[in-house]
């Protein structure tokens, strides 16, 4: 557990790494809220950006492993500020620590990751400091994926992901982008495959040619940089395509998507 909670309360400690010696760095806005919360954006440009993360997983071994892989703040820029092992704990910890990113296990006692997303809806919708969710799972089941994405997660990766890639994904999600694993990309392509059913909403129920190309390359194991190179577009454009797909995935009423979702009462 990082982020030593001072009993003084109210004064951000700057994550313990501020050179200002107790005085808040210029530009740092004291945030009313839990003690020990390093103010977002309090870092100088010289210091690499930090991302505050909460781990939610019912397997202690896995939490320990992830902590060891990404938790070295100095090296990775990720600071693990809380952990939780079930739905109730998760909601409590997330509300108390207000992290930027939550690594969320899909299968959780007490209702699963979907339940955590449902109960954190207001935090996700926050304009100032939204809490963003990245789903992790060992499962490849379509309904699991679709469930958490429709529940509001900004991405989905399997637990076999390497530490480096995970850190990369966390930063990406914290900036508001979407993260698709190859498998998720393949699944989305499948779900949006051309069917005979006429789309209910032309904007939401169809992928554009470009989005399809991007997804295809993700499914083929390309990184965003490589996709940009391949399609002669910028990385930013790739990201916006992926985000657009994510939006469609969350809002589309395509019958395949809703079928999975309703089968598990996720809608």
């Amino acid at each position, binding site marked *: 557990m990082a982020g030593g909670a001072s009993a003084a309360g109210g004064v951000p400690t700057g994550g313990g790494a501020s050179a200002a010696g107790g005085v808040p760095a210029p530009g740092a806005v004291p945030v009313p809220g839990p003690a020990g919360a390093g103010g977002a954006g309090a870092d100088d440009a010289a210091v690499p950006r930090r991302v505050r993360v909460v781990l939610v997983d019912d397997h202690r071994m896995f939490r320990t492993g992830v902590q060891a892989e990404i938790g070295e703040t100095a090296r990775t820029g990720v600071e693990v500020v809380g952990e939780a092992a079930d739905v109730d704990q998760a909601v409590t910890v997330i509300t108390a620590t207000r992290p930027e990113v939550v690594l969320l296990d899909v299968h959780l006692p007490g209702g699963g990751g979907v339940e955590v997303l449902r109960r954190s809806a207001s935090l996700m919708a926050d304009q100032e400091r939204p809490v963003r969710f990245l789903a992790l799972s060992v*499962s*490849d*089941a379509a309904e699991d994926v679709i469930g958490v994405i429709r529940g509001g997660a900004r991405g989905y990766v399997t637990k076999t992901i*390497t530490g480096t890639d995970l850190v990369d994904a966390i930063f990406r999600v914290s900036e508001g982008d979407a993260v698709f694993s*190859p*498998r998720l*990309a*393949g699944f989305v*392509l*499948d779900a949006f*495959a051309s069917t005979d059913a006429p789309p209910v909403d032309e904007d939401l129920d169809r992928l554009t040619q470009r989005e399809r190309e991007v997804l*295809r390359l993700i*499914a*083929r*194991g*390309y*990184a965003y*940089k*490589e996709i940009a*190179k*391949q399609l002669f577009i910028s990385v930013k454009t790739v990201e916006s395509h992926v985000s657009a797909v994510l939006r469609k995935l969350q809002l589309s009423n395509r019958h395949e998507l809703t079928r999975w979702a309703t089968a598990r009462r996720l809608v």
Partner: protein
Amino acid sequence: MTAAVPPTTPEPPPRKLYRSAEGRLLGGVARGLAGHLGLPVLWVRIVFVALVMAEGFGALVYALFWFIVPLGVGGVETMTTRPLTTVGPDGRRRILARRPERGQIIALVALCVGMGIFIQGFHLGRANTYIWPLLLIGAGVALFWRQADNARRAQWVELSRSKRVLPLARGATGVVLVAAGVSGIVVLQGSAKHLGAVLQAALAVLVGIALLVGPYVVRMTHDLSEERLMRIRAQERAEVAAHVHDSVLHTLTLIQRNAEEPREVARLARAQERELRAWLYRPEGTGKDEAEEPDTLAEAVKKTAAEVEDHHGVPIEVVVVGDCPLDERLGAQIQAAREAMVNAAKYGGDGGAVQVFAEVEGATVFISVRDRGPGFDVDAVPEDRMGVRESIIGRMQRNGGTARLRSAPDGGTEVELEMERAATT
């Protein structure tokens, strides 16, 4: 689970007397007896009929047997043994529609009429008038008992829902026959004038009983089906547990033994993970057993990747979009893809997982194999090295497809295979 086979020939189990559930005409008594005594069924039936002629003694014996002897899978083999279940195209078991038991009903009617005429031959005086009602009652009871037998049999053979109506109809017919017989007797006691009233009274009694017993019966059937569901679940759980225990423990043991060889450990863990996934996430309705030969593209690609992964110890991630049945051309494409995967695992495996992507779009099947190894120059491969040129490019071209090899951006090699599938869908 192989038990040691004892050298001695196993003794046949002691034969118990059961009524035969298969190929019976009435209650399966004759067939069961025949099976028990080792005689042809026809003989036993003839004996029974003869006994019936003897003052109806046979009927009594038969009824007693029917009532006492439990229904079982005994008796002699039927002439045409048909499987009770068949595996449908979707892999679910289905109950074969059985022939309506016309023969049995005819036998019943014939027996009744025969007995009626036979007994009428005697001059029993006043009792003669009661014969037909009594026979009606007998027939009703017989029908009803048969129904009870069927209900018991349904515990072994899950009858599908659509067949529920027939048993109900049969049971109801039995009840109606009994009611009619009883009314007949009552009417004979009194006079035909009272027929309407008596029938009404009988009906009222029946409805009353149904109202009293109905909810109880419904609740009981509900409880029974509930219990059955629980049992099936428990069985499924036990099956999973057994499977998981077996193979996972096995793998863990091997991993401990090979702790010094990280590659081997990784390979074992991957193989076990794959197997477990196949078990856990396989869609409903497919058999849990290993499929011998894949017959769709997705299955074939996954299987091929699994084999290469196992053989070379390099993780291969597979993503498949869409699916279609395999044909000859696609078989060739899978072969080429295998070759590409082997190359990727051999020469590019140090760069991390090999990524395989297959997509079916309309009539086109596209497969790409991508590694993040050092890459290689296709033109620099000596002429006498046939690997890539023959087994990938050549094979694809011979079958009317295309293959492209290229260096992927940011290092590594990518093989792209495209093939038009035979348009038969």
